[in-house]
């Protein structure tokens, strides 16, 4: 851990508390997320892992009564600072959701969407970016001949890769994944996992998952949440095999879930 600490962290979070109205969900979470790596967030249902993820790109802002305290730093920018442009922030911190959510538009327009809303007008440049993003998301070969087809006709796994392509297109630095495979079959899951591993050379990836095998297969670092607290954070092997916390050991061994 010590050598990574000297590197510039993608996220540096201190004393994060969050909740909805009277219900507090996260208590005093502090964590540093290293760049160009995969961090898995694990924990039983209702432990606050999704809320935590959504604090990082301020997706929780959309929920009424949501509150947040503490510091969330992305590089040297305070995510909840007064002068932050949320749209600009979300562009740099991409997010892929549990259920694939392509827009009811063509495959091409789905990927071009982010480029267009951020003001890109040059058709040649858009076409080029759409191509590059679909290649990076390992979807190009399957869709190159029908880019005008409605995205909703793709299979679930393809839709999820399209959503990843759409996110990549606006050139984020971080991509947040909120249980990206839980609505997919095993083959599609494996495709997405391979893709995530492949993407870490360019991006920092934070993956919320309730699938421990998945975390084991892909993660470099693992954070274990329980009842709104970060119980443990460390290298994957350390958390899964050498943990000194009884709770972590019980959870990774399947004593509770």
């Amino acid at each position, binding site marked *: 851990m010590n050598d990574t600490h000297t590197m510039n962290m993608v996220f540096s979070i201190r004393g994060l508390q969050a909740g909805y109205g009277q219900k507090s969900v996260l208590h005093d979470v502090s964590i540093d997320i290293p760049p160009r790596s995969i961090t898995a967030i694990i924990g039983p249902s209702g432990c606050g892992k999704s809320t935590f993820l959504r604090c990082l790109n301020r997706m929780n802002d959309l929920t009424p009564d949501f509150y947040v305290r503490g510091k969330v730093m992305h590089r040297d920018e305070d995510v909840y600072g007064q002068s932050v442009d949320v749209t600009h922030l979300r562009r740099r911190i991409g997010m892929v959701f549990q259920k694939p959510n392509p827009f009811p538009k063509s495959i091409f327009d789905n990927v071009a969407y982010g480029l267009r809303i951020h003001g890109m007008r040059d058709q040649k440049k858009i076409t080029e970016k759409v191509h590059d993003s679909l290649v990076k998301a390992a979807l190009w070969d399957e869709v190159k001949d029908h880019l005008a087809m409605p995205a*909703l006709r793709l299979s679930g796994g393809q839709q999820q890769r399209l959503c990843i392509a759409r996110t990549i297109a606006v050139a984020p630095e971080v991509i947040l994944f909120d249980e990206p495979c839980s609505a997919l079959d095993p083959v599609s899951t494996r495709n997405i996992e391979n893709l995530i591993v492949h993407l870490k050379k360019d991006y920092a990836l934070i993956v919320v998952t309730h699938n421990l095998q998945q975390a084991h297969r892909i993660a470099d670092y693992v954070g274990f949440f329980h009842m709104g607290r970060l119980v443990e954070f460390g290298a994957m092997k350390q958390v899964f095999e050498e943990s000194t916390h009884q709770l972590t050991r019980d959870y990774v061994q399947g004593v509770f879930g």
Partner: protein
Amino acid sequence: MLAKDAVYARRVGEYAIEVLIKLAAFSSIVITIGIIAVLMTETIRFFQEVSVWEFLTGREWTPLFSNKKFGVLPLFAGTAITSGIAMIVALPLGLMSAIYLSEYARERVRSILKPILEILAAVPTVVYGYFALQLVTPLLQRLIPSLSGFNALSPGIVMGIMILPIISSLSEDALRAVPHSLREGSYALGASRWQMVFSVAVPAAFSGITSAFLLGVSRAIGETMIVAIAAGLQPRLTLNPLVPIETVTSYIVQVSMGDTPTDSLEYRTIFAVGMTLFLGAFMFNVLGAWLQNRFREIYE
């Protein structure tokens, strides 16, 4: 023995109820067929005396004068211009208020605003008619001195206000039916709320908004009271909204309320005209259904 009687009585009861509700369900079909049959017979009798060609292309409508002309175009023009003005008012206002209610308003604001908007739909149209004649026309005359006391503009605007809650309410339902996940997908890419609304929510709700619009149009072309009161009863082939005109519906009122003998050619004009109105409204309904199917997105 007793138990058997009870079972029998229950079966008879069940059967009676089934027959009763079946009758209720089929009564609407019977009534519709009856209306169409009456319209058809009288329309056919009308067209035995007046050619369809003259009816559809004639530029003058004077069946109540001694020099009778049966060109329906002036009435169509009257209906088209008042409905057009109504839609120009109702569509943007309705869509904007739907967007506000569905995407911007907090729950508390919405719970106050929506019922108030729906009160507009509960105002009797005769009240709207006098509102157009006594209030809106004089106000407009201050802006446009050449505006006649009876005109298409004022009832058109008031009709737009009447239709507003239909468009707004149905469009809002369509917008709220757009899955939250699509909104999140757009926000997550850095869209502002306005961008999300216009590039994701509105296109995804397109079929619902279209059917709201078409329902509004068919309400407008069928609306009678407002135009009968405030538009004048002068069939005139014009698209000028500042002069008195007559719509298809207000002509029917004029004849029905007047002293036209019931078994005359003059009287049968209202069936011919009513039939064309019915066909027009039917066309809009079919178009609406087709568009809705054509553009429906299936969110599984």
